[in-house]
């Protein structure tokens, strides 16, 4: 039986942040168990805004304070996943102007940095904004890459001694023979091999977010986690450079965000209570409401092409009957020994991506007390996350890589920006594969191989979260087969597996386009995908009649 001090369940931003913090405090005998892939759940379906507090400064000032604090920290410790822009919050109507006054008052109270900018200059800088904007504020929110942040946190922990196991599902808890309320480990299922085995530990940290109650129910009790879905639409361009938001009470369709050095943008968010976090799908009505909303400040928005729609499920927590937006986004730390009489199990849920580091800090404070009787000091706000370098250092690295490996400067710039110092390792270790294999996102072959070697990938969907292959305007039409072949050659897979994985990933890309097709704008790309794979390639069927 495998033996650890801590088992963390859930490979989203909370679980990976907890792992990182555990390891920084010396608890290296920890293992992360994730049933699918890192960021495959809520963390991969979020609006990707690294909040600075602007959105909540009127409605939830406590959360705003936390976001402000964490925004500055993230930009310092993991700049490589953060979009190098800032935010513009605009007011158009009198209602917006009233709200703006309240906004500024509260912002001053909590020390949220902002600048009231000249409207005329702003309109010159962002020509697609509505011409009748009355007022605009520039502040510190920005976008980030939610996949790469999770992944960076996880591999930061791994590089310091922890174990990361993806495609490993917890199917039961283990209890002490003498004491049926003492959790002593978990029963794990390896979903790639179908092997079931036990892992023993001193403490189980349930960081499964919207699925939180499924874990506690393995001990026999529920927790009031309410799954709440948000739908997003991905546009094939960035109508604005900055993150854009509307100065009004948070509602559906507040703005546009870009995921760190990307040329696409996300329309979000909505809020719909649902029953089952595993069967949710994007809501087209929600998309319509959101687009109408943002179109008030970006009038030509409807001309932008939707590439795909996706959705994510928030873990809202409520001991009362509140639902939807009224439920606090506050983080919830549950000590089940105190609350339910079960030792060896704690749950961290609720919260926001932008405050995950803080959630992890509070969680590991509690874990530390339980494991060694005292709180070992937390350093996660100061330690840099694997690969972190400043934007200037990234530009220098890009120039070096471009000239040494004969790749275009633009490609090298994106590589260095997204991986930080790890970019150097990627090209050094795989110098023969530095050619671009996905033009829309500027990915080089070496990244594919690095991901396979270092970052626990089971299929191309996993590779995609690490390197963003197929996430650009062409949705993998020209790149999926190239990535798949490269993966197969490196991992020594069979031809059959290679085609299986290509089709599996093409299906995954299609799943997002499927909804966007009803908006009609993505029909040309979708048809090109069909023409290439089916019309020209016969990838759908080779059985002869």
């Amino acid at each position, binding site marked *: 039986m495998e033996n650890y001090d801590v088992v963390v369940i859930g490979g989203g931003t909370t679980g990976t942040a907890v792992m990182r913090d555990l390891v920084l405090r010396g608890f290296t005998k920890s293992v992360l168990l994730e049933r699918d892939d890192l960021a495959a759940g809520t963390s991969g379906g979020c609006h990707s805004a690294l909040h600075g507090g602007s959105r909540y400064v009127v409605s939830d000032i406590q959360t705003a304070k936390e976001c402000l604090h964490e925004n500055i920290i993230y930009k310092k410790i993991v700049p490589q996943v953060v979009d190098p822009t800032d935010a513009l919050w605009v007011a158009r109507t009198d209602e917006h102007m009233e709200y703006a006054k309240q906004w500024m008052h509260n912002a001053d109270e909590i020390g949220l940095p902002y600048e009231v900018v000249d409207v005329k200059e702003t309109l010159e800088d962002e020509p697609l904004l509505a011409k009748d904007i009355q007022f605009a504020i520039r502040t510190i929110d920005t976008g980030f890459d939610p996949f790469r942040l999770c992944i960076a946190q996880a591999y930061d922990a791994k590089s310091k001694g922890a174990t990361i196991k993806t495609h490993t599902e917890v199917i039961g808890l283990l209890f002490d023979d003498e004491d049926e309320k003492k959790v002593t480990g978990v029963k794990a299922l390896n979903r790639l091999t179908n092997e079931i085995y036990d892992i023993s530990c001193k403490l189980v940290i349930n960081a499964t977010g919207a699925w939180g109650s499924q874990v506690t129910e393995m001990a026999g009790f529920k927790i009031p986690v309410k799954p709440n879905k948000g739908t997003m639409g991905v546009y094939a361009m960035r109508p604005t450079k900055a993150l854009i938001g509307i100065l009004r009470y948070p509602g559906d369709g507040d703005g546009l965000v870009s995921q760190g050095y990307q040329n696409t943008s996300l329309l979000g968010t909505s809020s719909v209570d649902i029953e089952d976090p595993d069967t949710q799908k994007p809501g087209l009505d929600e998309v319509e409401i959101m687009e109408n909303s943002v179109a008030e400040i970006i009038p030509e928005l*409807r001309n932008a*092409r939707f590439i795909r729609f996706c959705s994510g499920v928030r873990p809202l927590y409520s001991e009362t009957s509140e639902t939807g937006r009224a439920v606090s986004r506050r983080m919830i730390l549950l000590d089940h020994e105190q609350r339910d009489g079960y030792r060896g199990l704690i749950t961290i849920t609720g919260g926001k991506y932008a405050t995950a580091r803080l959630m992890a800090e509070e969680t590991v404070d509690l874990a530390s007390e339980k494991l060694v009787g005292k709180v070992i000091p937390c350093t996660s706000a100061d330690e840099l996350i694997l690969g972190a370098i400043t934007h200037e250092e990234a530009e220098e690295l890009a120039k070096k890589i471009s000239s040494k*490996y*004969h*790749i275009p400067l633009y490609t090298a710039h994106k590589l260095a920006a997204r991986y930080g110092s790890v970019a150097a390792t990627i090209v050094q270790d795989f110098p023969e594969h*530095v*050619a*671009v*294999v996905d033009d829309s996102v500027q990915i080089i*072959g070496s990244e594919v191989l690095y991901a396979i070697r270092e970052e626990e990938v089971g299929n191309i969907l996993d590779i995609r979260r690490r390197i963003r292959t197929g996430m650009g305007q062409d949705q993998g*039409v*020209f790149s999926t*087969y*190239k990535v798949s*072949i*490269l993966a*197969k*050659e490196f991992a020594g897979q*069979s*031809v*059959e597996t*290679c*085609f299986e994985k290509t*089709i599996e990933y*093409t*299906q995954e890309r*299609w*799943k997002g386009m*499927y909804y966007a*097709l*009803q*908006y*009609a*704008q*993505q*029909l*040309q790309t*979708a*048809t*090109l*995908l*069909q*023409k*290439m*794979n*089916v*019309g*020209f*390639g*016969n*990838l*759908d*069927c*080779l*059985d*002869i*009649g």
Partner: protein
Amino acid sequence: MDSKNTEILVLGGGLAGFVAAKTAKDQGKDVILAAKSGGISEICPGAFDILGMVPGENKKIVVKIQDGIKNLKTVKPDHPYARSNSLNVAIEKLIDLAKDGGYKVSGDGNKNVFLPNIYGTFTTAAYVPSFLNAGVLRIEKKEKRNVLVIGVKGHQEFNCAHAARSYEYVGKRHNISDDTYYSVDITLPSFKNRTRVSSAEFAEFVDTKKGLMELVQTVKENVSPKLGLDLILFAPVLGFYKTDEIVETLEKATGVKVAEVASAGSSVVGFRLSRALRRGLEAHDIPFLYGYEAKAIRNVEEKVEVDFVAGATDYCHPGQQVTVVADKVVLAIGGFLGGGLSRGQKVVKVDLLGLDLGSITEADVNYNVFDSVGQPYLNMGLTVNENMEPQNIGLRNIFACGDIVAGFDGIYERSSAGVAAVTAYDAALSASR
């Protein structure tokens, strides 16, 4: 404002447009062909498909085309193949036009053959251009050949090692090929420091004397007589203009037959076909207005007027405005790929006609990306009567052919070229009456 007059104006630069123009000319009419571009033909693999598959629960690749068409007619009684008897003569028009432009195509139109492609699988086709010919696989006449698959370093579109293993595996598993495949990646000295070279750059290079010499020399160095080769399959980069010459030179130098692998989305290969069709038109004195985008169409008494914007346009260059007046107009403006069917907000439109074809619902799209019945929306387009005239468009003397026409799915049926040809032939005949 420039203005021209003609009897038949054909809009659209894909296969359908060219066949329509030639057919009308052969009927003794004055014809002009005008197009924004060559559409999907500019990136096609260069072979012609008549019918590769009948979409349905147990879909299988069609080998005997006539049997397949019979089957298709029962499943889709309104299919263009069901509504016409002109398939053979229409295909001949297409083949002859291409030949007149220097593009030789062969096949018997009754059996599909298989072509090894860039993915490592096999493409089906009825008619095959010269540069793919040596690589053709016939189901009923399987040989056991020794084949060398050659890739070029820097060419990211084709992985020859994967392809060789894949052809062998897929070939045996699906009973398509009994050949043994070897592979080698060659490095052309002029590109030895490059990590990525596009198909276009390679093609341009081997079109030159120096490039061809380097290519032949490098290939010879890598082809060992010990292998007893019957065939060389090459990455699809063998020139824009001189492909036949290049293939011949390689065959002479190595003593082995040479063919490219079938491409997908290659502008090099697409160029060869598009250029040949243009030259074919020239040989028959049919003017082709290339780069002319039709913006508006209207009836003026019994005639049809079409407004074009010509030339490359941007914010500073509005382009030249030209109007063509014709007795009849044949629309071969393409579907979703060619641009005839445009995407609006939730609604599919035919912009040129100001027509709204309705919205796409869940019933029109299948969640399974490679569904056995295909993607229903691919059948969308203009409904035409027995004279190939679109219905309910509020315009007279208009005919339609090719991908813009409803009732067929050229992708899942693998029938694009055949349908383009037959609908174009019929539309042009009607327009010429």
